């Protein structure tokens, strides 16, 4: 809880501010998705989205914040993740908690298809939710890691528009990346 060190000059807005700061942890923020779905969340959860944290700092966060770029289904998933990750356990201090959270993360992403994960990435990028952006990015990277071009094309639906000669030339040029 922050304490205001300003000398009180009796203005009512300052008192309001002081009262607001005392009740800060219990503040609710309302987020509205692009397709009109509303979500009421604790301020602490909303602060995981840097874009909203800045709005709160700058005092432009009203009660309701429209999230124009994100649909309701994606926003609900992001909020679900944010709620679980409000407090990140320290790996050194609480190994148990970290393991439990990692396990929850794995299950969370297991149920999602690739298209949804991409939408989550774009939304997390827009909201500036670093933790989820990193986690979702790693998930996508796992779809690519150690796979052959054929496998990656299959997963991501990419057309092979190289001629065999072009492909051979690229392999040769980049051979240094492969030598174990």
């Amino acid at each position, binding site marked *: 809880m922050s304490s205001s060190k300003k000398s009180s000059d009796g203005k009512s807005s300052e008192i309001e501010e002081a009262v607001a700061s005392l009740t800060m942890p219990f503040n609710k923020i309302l987020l509205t998705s692009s397709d009109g779905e509303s979500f009421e969340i604790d301020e602490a959860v909303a602060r995981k989205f840097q874009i909203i944290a800045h709005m709160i700092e700058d005092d432009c966060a009203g009660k309701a914040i429209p999230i124009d770029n994100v649909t309701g289904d994606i926003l609900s998933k992001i909020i679900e993740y944010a709620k679980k990750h409000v407090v990140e356990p320290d790996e050194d201090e609480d190994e148990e908690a970290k393991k439990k959270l990692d396990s929850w993360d794995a299950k969370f992403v297991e149920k999602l298809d*690739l*298209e949804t994960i*991409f939408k989550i*990435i*774009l939304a997390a*990028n827009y909201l500036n939710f670093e933790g989820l*952006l*990193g986690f979702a*990015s*790693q998930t*996508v*990277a*796992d779809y*690519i*890691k*150690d*796979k*052959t*071009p054929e496998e*990656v*094309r299959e997963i*991501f*639906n*990419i*057309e*092979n*528009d*190289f001629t065999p000669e072009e*492909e051979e030339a*690229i*392999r040769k040029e*980049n051979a*240094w*990346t*492969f*030598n*174990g």
Partner: protein
Amino acid sequence: MMNTESFGACLLLTLPEDVFTVISRFLSPSDICNLILCGKSLCALVDSEKTWLVQCEEVKVLPLFEIVQWRSGISSYKALCRFLVEVVKPLVGIWVQQNPELGNVVYVMPGFLSVVGCRIIPQKVGPLWIQEGRVKWSPVFEIICGFDGSTGFFLHGRDKEGSCLYPGFVMGIEKSCNLLQLEIEPRREKSSCNEIERGASRKGEKEGEVPFWMLAFSDRKNLLNIVTSHVGIHVVEPLNGRLFPTSKDDEAMLVERRTMLFKMHKFGGKWKNMNLEEDDQLCYNPMQLDINEMLENLGDDWFFDMEEELIEVTPTESTHVLGESSSSKNTAPSSSEIRHSNRQSFLSSGDTFGLSLKASYSELNSYEGWPYMYAHHFSLYKLPVKKFVDHEVEVYAGLWGGTFGWPAGKCPKSKPEKSLYLLMLTYEESEEYNERVLIGTKILEGKRYVRRPNGTAMFIVNIDTPTLEPFPVDADEIDFENSYSGNGIAEGYGFRYPGSKPGSLFVITNDLLAFVWQETKDVITLQRLNLAEILKKGLGSCVPPLPPTKNFTYMRRSYINEFTKSSTDPSYSDE
């Protein structure tokens, strides 16, 4: 036609560039290449400067600000990544040799668009030597990187007139190399640069061609001496001692030095008046050597080589070309004949001969953290430092430096400096105790005359069983975290067979240790070292190198500090 089944266009292409960059951080260079191979549509996104900048960071041999600094001297982040992956990463670390017994530590680290080998000299240090970066070192070699990523090798050394640089080839660096060898590489006039560099190793040898390492020791030594005496180029400022950036340096000087090195590599002795072209590759043109002259110098005489404890037997039959004698099944060729024919074969396999550096992996046995070394090979050996994934596992592994005496900082007024000891700490499974031991292997000793062989274990303690001993000497307010009991080196049978006596290791912090001998209460305090950081402070002194071949590998067994002998010392010839 695009398959518009489940998701329509490729999902990866929906990502803005900086988001793809976040994903690419989790991928390896080969994953990036596989993505490029998927299709033309992905190339622009994947094969970009941003992606390769991240890959450079992920190699984890160079901090970001230096990566960006180096970029100005190379064509792309991709080319820089290749240099970091293929040259810098495999080579950085601690390389050692048995002789001189006081210690021969070559620390390899990034320079400026180069990787450099600096020898830490046996020395005494003051109490603030780490904070102030006051360490004596000497240049050994450099591998520089050209604008297009091509590489060139320089050996440092000295002749009668002063310090010199000796240009040569980089003959292939294996990613998991632990053996660094100095060789002579024969070349046919017509072979191109591309064949020479880039790991175009001599594996595809033709029938009858003899590689350098198969030649007799004296032939190899003589060849190295002959070639270096011909290719040496005297150095002028700022080439002296400016192998890596320090806080005193500015980029302009480093760039100027780099240009000078390029010219030396390309033009040899006459480099001062020459100009480089825009797209000059680092392509070393080895010098032509008169074969007859070389044969004359090598000769067929037997010799009694005390230095290397190698005795050649007088040939009982006159030496002649192998071809004539091998036809007879009953007479196996004598070692002298084999030696002669190998030499002939080697010398006739090229028109020109150049100095070369090769880094390879070899199955090396080791004892208590010290590898068994091949005698009579111009090699340096890498001491492995395991990168611990789980940071709890090998907390104290790595390079430590220390001095004797307690408290550590205090020195009697009469002796402001103390002998510096460098130790490599490694973990090993002990069969005896069925748990791990921590071994402190001595790799450098700062005394005038060495007390125990290079590579002996100063102490061995049971690292899995903390004991809670009180510190046996008055320790004021110091809080010790833990202690581990074991043994420390002691008098044994002669120089080569040290004994051991009980002692304990005390942990002050993760980066500060003290080992105490139980009986004598001698204490050695050790601090974890980041040598690159220390050297880069720029306050250390650069000691002139030895004659080139010796400067790479000092063959002769010696118990004193060979690196600070005066250049006017008459025993200091090229031999």
